[in-house]
């Protein structure tokens, strides 16, 4: 360490961590200084949250050291990290909703007096808030507060426990633009008062707006640590998404009739917030349209409205000219629409049921298996055997439950099942997420086969490499809007990365 560089507040040296044999972090070095806002940047699954969970004592690293203020630490519980002055504000708040702000801040705080009146709690809270220069009504109940205010309570709670290093995990994900601006001001002030703030994000604008230095993680490896000053969004986007690889899929330019047609589609997410804004999309028979974007920007809702699993607010969706918005899920499936759902365990299969039941989930009512009320048991078993063989699912028997399969085998089964159901359109949401290389290649081959067979494919993935590899055309989604649609041949990784990070095409091409 050179003499002029300031003393780091927290230092991680060669941290490695694996989950179930998959490396989440591979010998990552990370260093944060006092009085700085340090942005930790990367795509989903790059290891940002894992790294911070290790710093906060939630996970233990498989290898490597954590050094806090010059002292090596071995955190075995979050309490140890808090004692060492490291506090983390999680994406999902851990507040007690029916209690007041003052009560929440004092909950489980060693300095809370044993016997205390509401008055004292409120006074103490107000004093603390004015010290910190942040204010929330201490008598308000948590559920009465806006999300931004709740977040401030979380930050205050962590600071009250003496945190000198504050970790914010994707803090703007739940905030409105105005609330985010307020948060940036708070974060800057905390850093100015001498604290370290680690700011996890994948939004490039935020990195540039709030941080002093930044570290980019990609697939568990640190790509760079550098001062934010002088960095460009394009450079960060390229580091986040990686260098282009050699690809071997032939991209096509398909003209002709469109199979899937979305016009002005708007829809709400489960929390009742608009997740799709006026989306127009066209997918033609025999092409793959890839949706690039960081997950959580409306992709889930997009897949669900097409399959009639979610109601439209406005707009129209047509498959081969038939309006699917007014159809039942089954009627849409009967049009020849297959859907590899994003959440294969939660939605795509019944883990407690045997494979034979899972094999026919999307076609058990068809004539092949059912004449009116009856279900031909032998036919189901035979079909399941054929499917298991075609999908190369490793199992001893079709009577084994789906829960006994490995994740890769589950996904191969679902992917093949849906590919079979898809005569006209296949909606594939994150079809290779969590798979090892071989399983991912097989699933990709299944999807490409469908395209070559004349099926329209809508591929949703947060892995930009995958979208670039597979797609004939690419649409970028950000906050429920289509930022642009490009032929694969014209797609530029850096440019796409900028659009995925929320830049408009005009801003991005500058």
């Amino acid at each position, binding site marked *: 360490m050179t003499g002029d560089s300031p003393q780091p507040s927290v230092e991680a040296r060669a941290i490695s961590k694996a989950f179930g044999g998959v490396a989440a972090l591979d010998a990552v070095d990370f260093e944060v200084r006092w009085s700085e806002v340090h942005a930790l940047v990367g795509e*989903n*699954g790059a290891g940002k*949250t*894992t790294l911070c*969970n290790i710093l906060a004592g*939630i*996970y*233990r690293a498989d290898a490597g050291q954590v050094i806090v203020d010059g002292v090596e630490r071995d955190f075995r*519980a*979050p309490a140890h990290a808090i004692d060492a002055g490291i506090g983390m504000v*999680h*994406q*999902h708040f851990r507040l007690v909703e029916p209690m007041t702000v003052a009560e929440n801040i004092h909950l489980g705080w060693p300095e809370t007096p044993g016997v205390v009146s509401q008055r004292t709690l409120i006074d103490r809270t107000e004093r603390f808030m004015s010290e910190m220069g942040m204010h929330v009504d201490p008598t308000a109940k948590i559920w009465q507060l806006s999300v931004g205010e709740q977040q401030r309570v979380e930050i205050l709670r962590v600071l009250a426990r003496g945190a000198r290093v504050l970790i914010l*995990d*994707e803090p703007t*994900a739940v905030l409105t633009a105005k609330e985010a601006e307020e948060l940036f001001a708070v974060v800057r002030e905390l850093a100015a008062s001498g604290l370290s703030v680690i700011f996890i994000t*994948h939004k490039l604008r935020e990195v540039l707006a709030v941080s002093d230095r930044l570290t980019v993680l990609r697939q568990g490896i640190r790509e760079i640590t550098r001062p934010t000053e002088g960095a460009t969004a394009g450079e960060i986007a390229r580091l986040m998404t990686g260098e282009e690889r050699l690809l071997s899929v032939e991209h096509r330019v398909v003209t002709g009739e469109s199979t899937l047609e979305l016009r002005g589609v708007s829809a709400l997410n489960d929390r009742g917030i608009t997740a799709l804004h006026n989306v127009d999309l066209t997918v033609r028979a025999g092409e793959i349209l890839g949706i690039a974007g*960081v*997950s*959580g*920007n409306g992709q889930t809702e997009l897949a669900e409205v097409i399959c009639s*699993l979610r109601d439209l607010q406005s707009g129209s969706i047509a498959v081969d000219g038939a309006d699917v918005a007014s159809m*039942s*899920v*089954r009627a*849409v*499936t009967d049009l020849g629409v297959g*859907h590899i*759902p994003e*959440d294969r365990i*939660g*939605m*795509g*299969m*019944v*883990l*407690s*049921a045997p494979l034979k*039941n899972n094999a*026919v*989930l*999307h076609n*058990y*009512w068809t004539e092949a298996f*059912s004449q009116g*009320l*009856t*279900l*031909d*048991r032998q036919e189901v078993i035979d079909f399941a055997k054929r499917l298991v063989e075609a999908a190369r699912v490793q199992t001893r028997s079709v009577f084994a439950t789906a*829960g*006994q399969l490995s994740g890769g085998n589950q996904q191969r089964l679902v992917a093949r099942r849906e590919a079979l159901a898809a005569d006209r359109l296949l909606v594939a949401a994150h079809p290779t997420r969590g798979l090892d290389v071989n399983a991912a290649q097989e699933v990709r081959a299944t999807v490409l086969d469908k395209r070559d067979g004349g099926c329209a494919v809508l591929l949703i993935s*947060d892995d930009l490499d995958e979208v670039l590899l597979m797609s004939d055309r690419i649409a970028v989604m950000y906050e429920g809007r289509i930022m642009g649609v490009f032929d694969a041949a014209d797609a530029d990784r850096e440019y796409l990365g900028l659009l995925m990070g929320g830049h408009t095409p005009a801003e991005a091409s500058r």
Partner: protein
Amino acid sequence: MTPLGSIAGAVLSATPWRLDRRLEVDTRRAALSRISGAVSAMVVVGILLLLTGRNAFWILWQALDSILGSQRGIEGVALRAIPILMTALGVALSLRMKVWNIGSDGQFLMGGLAAVGVGIHMNGPGWLVLIVMAVAGTLAGAAWILVPALARAYLDVNEIITTLLLNFVAFQLVVWASLGFWRDRESAVIRSTERVPVILEKIPGAESVTIALFVPVIIAAALWWVFRSTTIGYEVDTIGGNPRAAGFAGIAVRRRIMVVMLFTGAIAGLGGMLQLSAPGAQAMNAGFSAQFGLSGFIVAALAGASFWGVMGGGVCIAAMFYAGVLLQTKGLSVYIIFASYGVILTGIALGEIAARYRLARRDTEETGTGSDAVAADHASEGAGS
């Protein structure tokens, strides 16, 4: 999770242990653990009896002899088995869909009450009266679960509470009927409804068992077929396994929940009618249901919602209750008998759990905030934005 497994898992949640489902259930091992559960419970009961100075072997002999030693014994078991089997089949059906119908006692009572109402007011040939009674009992059982079913299917209101509480309402209605509006004012029996003049046909050669015995057998066979060979059975099992996957497959989940819950109530209600039209019953009073709903629930939970398992388990529990009653006449106190029931059922339940689960110590790294954090981490990495 089987119903029993969820209960056991909940009990263990406060301990450093948890249950892991066995990925592969070896039939012989499973049978062994079930038998050893029952046998070790019997041994515990035997030791308790020996400690209180009684001859356990003599008592066991008396119990077996009272059940199997005479036609009367066998018929006695059959009579007790019918209502238990009916409630148990209803509950087992609901458990296939992971719906916990705790209200089969109430549905059973309402079935009996509706049948009494028809039986004492309707004039006509006996067979016709009985058919109308059966229809009324079935409909009343279904009606008694209608509100919980609507609330569960369309408002996601937990059915355990609603069905359970309606048991008490049904019981009070029966008391009211037997002391009030349908009270028997002619006979000396004062706390009972009027008697229904008709009974079901006895099985040829039987002293008291009627053709009602065939009803649970037919229902079990029908349910077995439905779940083996129809799309409805497939859909119910899919809803029970994963309601979101059922929605993904285009199954009308709410409507199915509705219909299945009505059927579970209907089966219990028909059970009430069958109980009423047995010789000697024919009227309702506060003691009409000897906790048949509870016994049925225990049977269904132990059988893991398998319909043939319900049939076997229902007969066994009926035999145990029958032996218990007879042993009281041989000088065993009712407390000892109840305690023995409890020990035996617990033993069977533990054997059943051991057949399907193994006990594992919670991984030290995954406890407390750690496991929460794992979940939160996956959620945040998944949701991303």
